[in-house]
């Protein structure tokens, strides 16, 4: 008991340098916990991008590439799928629903996705959540568009706004579909997924703007007006990909094999969960690097503490001799130093936790507003507990050096101190 009191009072007596040490440990702890938290949040938000879909089907390529363009709107498809093939699988007896996806156009750098109203009915993200409209209605007409939350916010669009689509995916495109503008009829609620950065139109709309085009360019002198195009047959010949929901999940792998072995067309069916995991593994390299960096920061913090403890050794020599004269065992002197490190480390960890908690609470509304990402409130979980435990043990191990020096000195000095 007396040792705890002495430790506490002695620390308080040196509070300025101790508070600085504490801060440096708290900052490294909060960095470590913060990085871990961001990693977990990023992973869950990443894995939350798509849910409830059993298969993603596209032209044969890699499953990561398929996932990237069909779900994350990154990169482009190498090939399209024949409309007939899509119809075949749409009416497959195992299939409950499908969502066709047609990509290739953009608006101000945001990808345009052609689909049908099943998209609003069946697409699920996060924990099997449906898409919801913040304003307006799903598209019904050929030239209707539904915007993702971020598109509407960043570009300042509201219902009734008229937008022109551009050919290709770049932010600046020289070939725009100027003669067939779209009208914003709906704006989706934020989802924290790439949907927020997508402009949704009907498959017919995509078909209509390309009706007077050939091989990716408008045919000179051959222009069909918007009204006329809308009345024409707008059934697409091809789509980019489609999502599949099955009647029974048990049939997933059977249907996957069937699609992969399709003799009519080279197709690839990917199970989203498996593809996401593979994709995350390649993205995940980054987290290892981040972790290594934070561990170094932590070690720097602990070395700072070690320096502080070592630098006080000389001035505390007298203190140790007094305690020895009182009858304190050399082991108690050793313990005094270990306790000191323990107190600093525990307080540093607590302070670090508070930093993270407060930081997340402060960042939450901003992140949600700016990125549509919903952050979970930070609470230390089992992993964090283990990490904090390791930090404290490491601190105590580090402090063994000054403790042992003090121990040896008390044995040498005895009651007389050579200062």
């Amino acid at each position: 008991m007396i040792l705890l009191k002495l430790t506490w009072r002695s620390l308080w007596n040196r509070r300025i340098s101790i508070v600085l040490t504490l801060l440096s440990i708290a900052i490294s702890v909060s960095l470590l916990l913060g990085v871990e938290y961001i990693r977990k949040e990023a992973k869950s938000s990443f894995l939350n991008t798509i849910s409830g879909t059993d298969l993603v089907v596209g032209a044969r390529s890699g499953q990561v590439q398929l996932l990237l363009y069909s779900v994350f709107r990154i990169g482009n498809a190498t090939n399209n799928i024949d409309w007939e093939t899509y119809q075949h699988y749409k009416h497959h007896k195992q299939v409950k629903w499908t969502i066709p996806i047609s990509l290739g156009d953009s608006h101000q750098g945001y990808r345009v996705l052609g689909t049908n109203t099943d998209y609003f009915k069946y697409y699920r993200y996060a924990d099997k959540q449906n898409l919801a409209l913040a304003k307006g209605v799903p598209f019904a007409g050929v030239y209707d568009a539904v915007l993702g939350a971020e598109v509407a916010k960043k570009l300042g669009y509201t219902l009734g706004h008229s937008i022109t689509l551009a050919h290709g995916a770049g932010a600046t495109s020289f070939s725009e579909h100027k003669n067939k503008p779209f009208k914003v009829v709906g704006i989706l609620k934020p989802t924290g997924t790439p949907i927020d950065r997508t402009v949704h139109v009907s498959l017919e709309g995509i078909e209509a703007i390309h009706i007077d085009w050939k091989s990716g360019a408008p045919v000179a002198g051959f222009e069909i007006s918007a009204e006329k195009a809308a009345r024409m047959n707008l059934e697409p010949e091809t789509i980019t990909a489609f999502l599949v929901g099955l009647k029974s999940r048990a049939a997933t792998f059977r249907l996957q094999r069937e699609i992969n072995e399709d003799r009519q067309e080279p197709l690839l069916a990917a199970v989203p969960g498996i593809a996401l995991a593979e994709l995350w593994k390649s993205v995940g390299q980054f987290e290892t690097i981040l972790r290594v960096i934070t561990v170094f920061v932590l070690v720097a913090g602990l070395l700072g503490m070690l320096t502080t403890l070592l630098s006080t050794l000389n001035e505390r020599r007298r203190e140790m001799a007094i305690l020895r004269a009182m009858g304190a065992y050399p082991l108690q002197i050793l313990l005094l130093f270990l306790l000191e490190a323990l107190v600093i480390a525990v307080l540093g960890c607590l302070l670090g936790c508070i930093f993270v908690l407060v930081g997340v609470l402060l960042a939450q509304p901003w992140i949600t507003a700016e990125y549509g990402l919903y952050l979970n409130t930070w609470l230390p979980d089992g992993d964090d507990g283990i990490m904090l435990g390791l930090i404290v043990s490491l601190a105590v191990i580090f402090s063994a050096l000054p403790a042992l020096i003090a121990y040896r000195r008390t044995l040498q000095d005895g009651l007389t101190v050579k200062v």
Partner: protein
Amino acid sequence: MNIVELDQLHYCWKGQTKDTLHIPELSIAQGEHVFLRGESGSGKTTLLNLLAGILSPSSGSIRLLGQDLHNVSSIKRDRFRADHMGVIFQQFNLLPYLSVVENVTLPCHFSARRRDKAGDMQQSALSLLDHLQLGETLRGKIVSELSVGQQQRVAVARALMGQPEIIIADEPTSALDTNTRDRFIKLLFAQAEAQNSTILFVSHDPYIADYFPRVIELSEINQAL
């Protein structure tokens, strides 16, 4: 009963061939305040550490209060020191982060015996401080605000706390001026006698010798020199 009995005491520092200390015989009776005079290098420090149980003799025996301290573990010697000895240093006796009263009660936290003897720790610390002419205004101060003389008197109060049989004072007056020194020694004697403690006073200063009934010249009893 003798407080201290040394018999053929030898002490040799590790790595040295020659004894630092060789005292064939020394005994000090209870209540017989002793002035141990020695120049630096006369083995004063070594003897002090041996008496306090920090060091263990190379050979020969040390008996304190009738107990042989030669062949016991260092933990037992530490325990013995905590229970039966009060120590006063030259200066910087006090822990700067404790209050005056907390400094005085400190020995009671390391020795149950002294805690029991002190009874109400707070009360007996205050009465000791009173007797050593440290008024109430001084008790609230932080230790570093006290003068050296005041600090040394607080150290006396601490050494006397819980009535240990032996008070070891290692040049406690060297940092004091003559007037303060005289007052300090008088107060030390008065309080030590009031609770029947024996003072072992180590110093090189011959002027203090007059206060003591017995003066031992270390250079005369240490055969190693």
